């Protein structure tokens, strides 16, 4: 068991609670047969993780049984993300998960933020990349505390990677945790990390229709940052058209247009961070 957060115990409990809730939710679900809680064939108690609560069903082959389950495939990731979330909340750390294509300006935005606004409070940044520590080095050069998470073949961060990094690097006095996800508009969207806010970035060279092409990531965003605003002119980029595409996927998400290079819009970003910190 971990001394810092008791995570094995907490994870086990969170996992079982999630499964138990899911077992209760499916009780009475006629689609998979009767939803009784006990079954004669099973001597297990009720906080186990794998509900054959609907009992084995008969099939043509008498030896074959059907286990009706209804379990989240990423249940373990989700349970660990919930542990991360509670752990961060108990330390009053606001965690933001920044997701975008490679090259949308995540690191530049964070570098300017860390150097320009240390008054936002102690911050830790976890940076996911398949290889190299380049982005973490950039952020450290900007005056921030940053740790690279090298994912090797993985195309996304998951809750376990964040959990391990928090154990190794969170001091406990942080007010902000920035998680710079692996540059990728597809895979990171599927994995809850335990963040409080999901921030999606998009820049002019990517075109206006990224939200329509990658709806899953933009659909769940709590904030969309249209970054590199200084490139809108050279790229012939139509910001209003981009926002219109975004609105079809996530009608009410706040949008901030900014350039971390020129400083345009940075005040709005800082206001968002201040509000998140006080929420």
């Amino acid at each position: 068991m971990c001394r810092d957060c008791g995570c094995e115990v907490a994870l086990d409990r969170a996992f079982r609670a999630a499964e138990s809730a899911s077992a209760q939710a499916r009780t009475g679900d006629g689609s998979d047969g009767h939803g009784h809680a006990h079954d004669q064939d099973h001597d297990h108690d009720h906080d186990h993780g794998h509900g054959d609560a609907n009992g084995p069903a008969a099939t043509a082959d008498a030896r074959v049984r059907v286990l009706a389950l209804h379990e989240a495939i990423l249940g373990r990731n989700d349970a660990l993300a919930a542990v991360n979330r509670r752990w961060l909340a108990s330390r009053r750390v606001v965690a933001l998960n920044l997701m975008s294509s490679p090259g949308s300006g995540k690191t530049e935005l964070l570098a300017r933020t860390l150097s320009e606004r240390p008054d936002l409070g102690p911050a830790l940044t976890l940076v996911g990349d398949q290889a190299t520590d380049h982005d973490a080095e950039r952020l450290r050069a900007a005056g921030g505390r940053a740790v690279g998470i090298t994912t090797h073949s993985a195309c996304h961060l998951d809750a376990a990677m964040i959990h391990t990094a928090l154990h190794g690097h969170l001091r406990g006095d942080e007010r902000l945790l920035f998680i710079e996800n692996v540059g990728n508009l597809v895979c990171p969207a599927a994995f809850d990390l335990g963040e409080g806010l999901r921030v999606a970035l998009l820049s002019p060279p990517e075109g206006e229709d990224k939200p329509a092409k990658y709806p899953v990531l933009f659909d769940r965003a709590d904030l969309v940052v249209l970054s590199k605003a200084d490139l809108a002119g050279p790229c012939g980029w139509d910001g209003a058209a981009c926002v219109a595409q975004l609105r079809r996927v996530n009608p009410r998400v706040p949008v901030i247009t900014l350039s971390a290079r020129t400083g345009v819009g940075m005040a709005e970003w800082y206001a968002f961070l201040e509000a998140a910190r006080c929420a």
Partner: protein
Amino acid sequence: MHEMAIAVALVERVEAALRHARATRAIAVHVRVGALCGVVPEALALCFPDAACATLGDVALHVELVPVELRCRSCGVVALADAAAMICAGCGATDVEVLRGRDLELTRVEVR
């Protein structure tokens, strides 16, 4: 392609289900994949045999696709939608609630 990570997580869940049911072998695995869950069913099907071969052996994967279903908070209409257009099919409003489509679920395992 994160579907390999999803496939590995799926195999772990099936292994645990086998242990709890005291079954020796999984014959078929049934999953639900929503259009908004960020998983490509074909990619999952491609990865699953490799993820399963070491412990589960040869096991069939059945994928049920779950479309996006929205309820309009303005007019109350419930209808299917495209993931890229989260708008009410009835009145065109954008104030909608997602009823289905985020599913990524192991629903059944046929065991022996």
